[in-house]
């Protein structure tokens, strides 16, 4: 659809004004600024401006040893911190050919999936806050506190865990965690049903999201969008299924995919993903083997052989990949972080042309952005 056909003009052509959204705005995605050229309530052009939370993560990669860089990985996307640490740690282990013990791999999967659920809960609460409903935020944070209690018991932190270590885990789990996780899975399933009847089937939400913000699969491919964005456009791309890493190939779970391409499809993908994560956690708890949680013979001083190494994981927002270029020293030569939010937001300019402003905000919320993920 051409932009000029979509704009309803009230007689005077070329009368547009510039509206600045952010960098401080109540939609709590972070510090994103969008320069919008508006024709009344319609967007002519929305240009995101990033860099307001640029924290030099890639430069710090060149100033820190491999072990010292671990806390940085949690702070790139703090809502889904485990999968980001997994990406970095996996790249180093791939380069050093370290064999991570199976118990550590299963625990990595369990904690990553718990983190995925807590990240989707924050997205859900904040998205509905954008759309105008305050109550689901409180329900979401209530459930999230239960997950945070479990993870705090083993990692010591509520948000930016640095639980994985190069070669395994920081420490083993106790029975309190295992029992608590099973209880959480049991009580979370009825909560998801309640969310469905409270919010998903709500007529106001359906009118706000259905047929809003269509993103075609071809647009996703051209921009590199991944995660629920591409799965809400009908393409079942999930790194856990296409390039299985860790022990994900041993679990039986469905990749939720909806073909409608609108914001409602992306919403439903994430709601269904929470249910699938509960399935994975249950299966992993059943299959959890005994044994050590740290590889033997991890060198004290980590020096990767020269060359470049990649590792990709499926974070809550999409495909996260790390590329480490090493020249044989104990400090990396270059650490490149491929973050999903940057690719997901890059299609916003093309997708939002000609939309009403509230609809564009619904589209932006359904892309699930975390701005430090873009700026790194």
């Amino acid at each position: 659809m051409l932009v000029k056909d979509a704009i309803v003009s009230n007689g005077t052509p070329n009368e547009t004004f510039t509206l600045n959204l952010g960098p401080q705005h109540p939609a709590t995605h972070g510090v994103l600024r969008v320069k919008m050229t508006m024709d009344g309530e319609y967007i002519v052009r929305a240009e995101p401006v990033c860099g307001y939370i640029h924290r030099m993560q890639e430069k710090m990669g060149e100033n820190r040893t491999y072990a010292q860089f671990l806390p940085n990985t949690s702070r790139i996307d703090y809502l889904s911190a485990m999968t980001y640490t997994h990406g970095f740690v996996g790249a180093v282990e791939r380069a050093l050919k370290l064999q991570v013990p199976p118990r550590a791999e299963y625990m990595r999967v369990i904690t990553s999936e718990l983190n995925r659920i807590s990240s989707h809960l924050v997205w859900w609460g904040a998205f509905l806050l954008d759309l105008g409903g305050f109550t689901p935020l409180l329900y979401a944070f209530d459930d999230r506190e239960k997950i945070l209690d479990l993870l705090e018991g083993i990692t010591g932190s509520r948000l930016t865990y640095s639980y994985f270590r190069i070669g395994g885990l920081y420490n083993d789990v106790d029975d309190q965690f295992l029992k608590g996780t099973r209880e959480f899975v049991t009580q979370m399933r009825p909560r998801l049903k309640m969310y469905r009847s409270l919010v998903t089937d709500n007529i106001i939400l359906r009118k706000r999201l259905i047929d809003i913000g269509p993103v075609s699969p071809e647009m996703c491919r051209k921009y590199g969008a991944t995660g629920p964005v591409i799965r809400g456009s009908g393409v079942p791309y999930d790194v856990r299924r296409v390039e299985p890493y860790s022990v994900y190939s041993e679990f039986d779970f469905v990749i939720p995919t909806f073909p409608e391409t609108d914001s409602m499809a992306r919403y439903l993908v994430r709601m269904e993903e929470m249910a699938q994560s509960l399935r994975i956690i249950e299966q992993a708890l059943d299959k959890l083997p005994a044994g050590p949680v740290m590889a033997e013979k991890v060198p004290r001083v980590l020096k990767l052989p020269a060359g470049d190494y990649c590792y990709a994981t499926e974070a809550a927002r999409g495909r996260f990949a790390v590329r480490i270029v090493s020249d044989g020293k104990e400090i990396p030569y270059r650490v490149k972080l491929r973050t999903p939010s940057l690719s997901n937001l890059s299609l916003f300019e093309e997708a939002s042309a000609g939309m009403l402003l509230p609809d564009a905000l619904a589209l932006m919320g359904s892309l699930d952005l975390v701005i430090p993920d873009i700026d790194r």
Partner: protein
Amino acid sequence: METPESNAQLLSDCAPYVKFAKLDEMLALGRANSLWPLTFGLACCAIEMMAAGASRFDISRFGAEVFRPSPRQADLMIVAGTVNKKMAAAVKTLYDQMPEPKWVIAMGNCAISGGPFVFPGQYAVVEGVDKLFPVDVFIPGCPPRPEALIEGLLKLEEKLTGKRRWPTVKPE
């Protein structure tokens, strides 16, 4: 007819029902119990600030749940997250737009001193928000727990009123 004795009698009769105080103290009590924060979450600490506003930790108990998006309506700026050199101008503008009296809480290590992002050769991070404007309370942590944010609020209330509303928890 009014006499000093009849006035004294009147005061002692009213004592259970009427209190007298200085206007300053009254205003300070009102301000401390209804601090309206500006929604200024920048990074990871913003999530803990949201958690403090949610049901479990509930800063609404202290009157501070009304997060205002507009700085003109807020009197407390909780800087939660890293302040960038690109963002510094916007932060200063927001601070200037807040009407007096206003207070600032620096939440998290990044707002106190740049946090984990300070290294030799760093080019983008402002090392502490107190380089831009005066800060009243510093809350360390990366990120600080919601209880720490509540403690910071109580410290700010103590700064305003001179009295601490909650007894200090002594670790055993």
